[in-house]
């Protein structure tokens, strides 16, 4: 069962043990003959240990680096365990000074509402979060009013339903997890509020997953109720392919291809998980710039104050 992975683990371990052996032997070999001719015996231990210490440190550092490089190959993700590795797409909002594409967030919310919301909740997002990001206040109020919300006991102690307000959270498709599992063959459609942060390389992963449905390769059979998706760990996912060309009609007339809907919905999910991104990038850029100027000032000030000491001269006047 010699896999490539096994070879890499073995070679990494061998390099590590070889170099640690070398580190242990090196200070024995080098230190003693070099020093014994120069130093008196009583000093040998003190100076010798300092010299051997530095050699040992260097050798261990070298061993550590080589071992790490050898063992780093172990970090290879096994496709069966982690799913096929997703390609990295050039998102419009990646980059140190790039904002979200807000029109894309709006379209993505439309896709979520029409395609995904029947099974996936987004219970951490409120309607008011959309104001100023994808919709105007009036639009959002109208959207919220379309849903019915159960509200707290009235004066008679009864729960009642009312149309939604801006402060309400997004509606949940199922009452609880058990109802969700029962309606989906035992699989729980995860809440999408933080999904792009909750999965490794989340944005690319979700896009790859949504657009990655294909026929299983020869010899792979997926049981009834599951669907083949190479990006899903294990390869068999309970969700069927939801994004099909023309599934949604965009308000702004953008052609709703599978890739377009995937891009828009992932942008929406990325915003939902990280609504503070634009402010964070602005703040980060500004303060790193300001602090690097402050660093220059601090460096100048330090050298100014130290110039007295750096430029002094000491004269030893020894009288024999």
């Amino acid at each position, binding site marked *: 069962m010699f896999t490539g992975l096994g070879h890499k683990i073995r070679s990494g371990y061998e390099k590590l043990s070889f170099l640690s052996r070398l580190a242990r032997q090196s200070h024995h070999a080098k230190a003693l003959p070099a020093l014994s001719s120069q130093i008196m015996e009583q000093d040998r231990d003190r100076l010798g240990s300092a010299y051997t210490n530095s050699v040992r440190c260097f050798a261990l550092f070298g061993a550590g680096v080589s071992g790490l490089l050898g063992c780093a190959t172990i970090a290879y993700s096994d496709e069966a365990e982690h799913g096929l590795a997703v390609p990295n797409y050039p998102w419009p909002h990646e980059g140190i000074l*790039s904002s979200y594409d*807000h029109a894309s967030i709006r379209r993505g919310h439309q896709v979520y509402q029409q395609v995904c919301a029947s099974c996936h909740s987004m219970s951490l997002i409120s309607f008011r979060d959309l104001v100023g*990001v*994808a*919709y105007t206040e009036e639009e959002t109020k109208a959207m919220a009013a379309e849903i019915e919300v159960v509200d707290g006991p009235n004066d008679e102690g009864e729960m009642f339903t009312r149309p939604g307000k801006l402060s309400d959270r997004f509606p949940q498709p199922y009452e609880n997890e058990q109802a969700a599992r029962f309606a989906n063959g035992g699989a729980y459609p995860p809440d999408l509020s933080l999904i792009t942060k909750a999965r490794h390389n989340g944005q690319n992963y979700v896009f790859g997953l949504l657009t990655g449905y294909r026929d299983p390769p020869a010899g792979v059979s997926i049981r009834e109720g599951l669907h083949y998706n190479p990006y899903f760990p294990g390869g068999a996912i309970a969700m069927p392919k939801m994004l099909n060309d023309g599934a949604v009609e965009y308000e*702004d007339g953008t052609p709703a291809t599978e890739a377009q809907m995937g891009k828009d919905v992932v942008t929406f999910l990325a915003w939902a998980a990280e609504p503070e991104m634009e402010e964070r990038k602005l703040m980060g*850029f500004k303060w790193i*710039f300001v602090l690097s100027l402050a660093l220059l000032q601090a460096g100048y000030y330090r050298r100014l104050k130290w110039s007295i000491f750096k430029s002094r001269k000491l004269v030893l006047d020894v009288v024999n």
Partner: protein
Amino acid sequence: MDSATRRRSQGGLFEGLYRVIMRRNSVYVTFVIAGAFLGERAVDYGVHRIWEYNNVGKRYEDIPVLGQRQSEE
């Protein structure tokens, strides 16, 4: 020593800066506080200009269908 004093009396950029703001601590502190206030305004303005230049068409205000009610689905 002589050449050093001659060079100093002509003044470089740092020398000039020192003479103006770092002779008196009160002047130095005033410079720092006023500089921080004005500098922050300038940096904010500059960064926002770069941000808007880099993100043409992606802002909330640039959404083409903004204001139209969502179609009933």
